[in-house]
């Protein structure tokens, strides 16, 4: 539905006022958090004048930003890789093959969505301890990947289904087996789907709070969200709001940048869903 297209330029003024106002409301907290992180505040490293003192506090806290950011990066990269590999293979099978148990397996994958995080984290905490994977970044990445599977598998399935069959058939006539068809012919056509799945897996892993909170007790293994949440009460119960907002900015920056860079891909990835229903 096209809203307001038939109106004249004058008649569109309320539209611009409304949408402009909404845009300001949506941007304001983001801009404010950056402002709060560099503005002077008593009892912080940035007590007078504007500057990056709070970032220094953040940098030195706990295991130190290099370690913490590396932990976050390792969890995120592993999650993206695991999610992409499993959902690409699975999505291809669900879209293009018929085999016994296919519908049941697909439904089972989607049903992960219905299970609370906490329900699985408690037994997984016990299981990972038993497997010697406690305090392991790999364990956390595997866990987060599992929760990505419903969305990722669904997205890859509809992406593969949207490819015309002729493309695949001509590849097979040329003697490609199913894997080289997938690798050389199909993958380039599902790039928007891959980017969407990869981006959402990255955002989920980079930002996940609950899984590391429970599965990682070693301070040297903590990723950013848990560290920044812990940092709030460092000096005798006085909350360091400035350093907290600096932590928010550091956490948000890679996400915002990736989100803006990849926007055209994931909007297209979502639109594939529109065509297939």
């Amino acid at each position: 539905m096209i809203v307001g297209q038939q109106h004249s330029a004058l008649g569109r003024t309320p539209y611009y006022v409304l949408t402009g106002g909404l845009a300001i409301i949506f941007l304001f907290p983001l801009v404010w958090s950056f402002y709060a992180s560099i503005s002077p505040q008593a009892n912080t490293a940035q007590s007078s004048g504007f500057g990056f003192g709070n970032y220094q506090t953040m940098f030195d806290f706990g295991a130190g930003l290099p370690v913490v950011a590396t932990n976050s990066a390792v969890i995120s990269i592993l999650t993206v890789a695991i999610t992409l590999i499993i959902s690409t293979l699975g999505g291809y099978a669900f879209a293009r093959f018929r085999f016994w148990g296919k519908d049941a397996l697909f439904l089972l994958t989607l049903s992960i969505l219905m299970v609370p995080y906490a329900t699985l984290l408690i037994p997984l905490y016990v299981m990972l301890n038993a497997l010697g994977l406690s305090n392991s970044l790999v364990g956390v990445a595997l866990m987060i990947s599992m929760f990505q599977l419903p969305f990722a598998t669904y997205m890859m399935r509809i992406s593969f289904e949207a490819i015309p069959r002729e493309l695949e058939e001509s590849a097979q006539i040329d003697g490609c087996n199913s894997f080289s068809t997938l690798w050389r012919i199909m993958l380039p056509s599902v790039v928007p789907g891959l980017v969407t799945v990869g981006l959402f897996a990255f955002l989920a892993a980079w930002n996940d709070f609950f899984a590391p909170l429970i599965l990682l007790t070693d301070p040297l293994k903590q990723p950013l969200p848990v560290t920044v949440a812990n940092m709030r009460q460092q000096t005798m119960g006085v909350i360091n709001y400035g350093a907290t907002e600096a932590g928010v900015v550091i956490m948000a920056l890679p996400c915002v940048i990736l989100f803006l860079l990849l926007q055209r891909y994931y909007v297209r990835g979502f639109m594939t869903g529109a065509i297939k229903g």
Partner: protein
Amino acid sequence: MTSISEATTAERPARRFSQGLRRQLVGFAYTIPTLIFIVIFFLTPLVLVAKMSLSKYGLLTGDEGFNFPKNYVSIWRNQLFWPSVWFTVQYTVLVTVMLLGLGLGLALLVQTVTRWSAVLRTVFLLPVSLGLAAASLLAYGFYSPAIGPISPPLEALGLIDNPIAFLGTSLAALLSTTFLVVWKFAGFYMLVLTVGLQGISDDLYEAASLDGATPWQNFVHITLPLLRPTLALATILCVTGSLLAFDQFFILTKGAPDNSTVTAVQVIYREAFQRQNLGTAAALSILVLIVLVLINLLQFRFLRGTDRD
């Protein structure tokens, strides 16, 4: 969905049959990683949590033997449990109504193919890229009397005498957290509903406008009914997400004031890692799982049922 193998099976039965079987096996092989993952990280923990819920199971002591139905009975005596259920339901209704309403509103506002609406779409999507924990930490400062940006200008204008206590009362904390969540997720629901809106053919609106329909009539008689499947999906996602709320309250309110903002998942967390009783935490998890599955089945049924009229 007819696959190649199926379409050609009839031609030369014997050879085609073995090829069909081969293709089945190949298809199945591609799902083996999914299958392994689901068995190890989904089905095994589910069985394990069910088993744990039947035993006395300490965080440090491990399994101390079968004690059914003690863990389940103790849920009823848990003083946090019923208030947390009521609080979670209030939060879920509030968030779902506001998110779907605002998401649909934003989707309608960015429908036009102009540069301005592309800018708007990006702006509304930006908070989606933040994690819930990051957004909650942002709000922790935003709502604080120490550095929050809302109160100082109001105080300067003489409208208020003291900084607003955004998290001071149970209701204020609920509304402030809802505002945070709506701000963070509105763009996502806008995107989902935009996809739904684009699936509605323009011809319908053209035909309606020839008949002299007003924009409001278009919205009620064309947009809403045809958007129902997308709205159904959005509702299910939103209700499930809200019922399982944890990060935002864990970071923002920690249950304060007076344990009045404790959600169901927070009760599970406290039971497991503060009271160190994995058995009762497992029983709570199973209960939450059953309720969630029932609610989702009801929603599916309701939305399917109304789909046909």
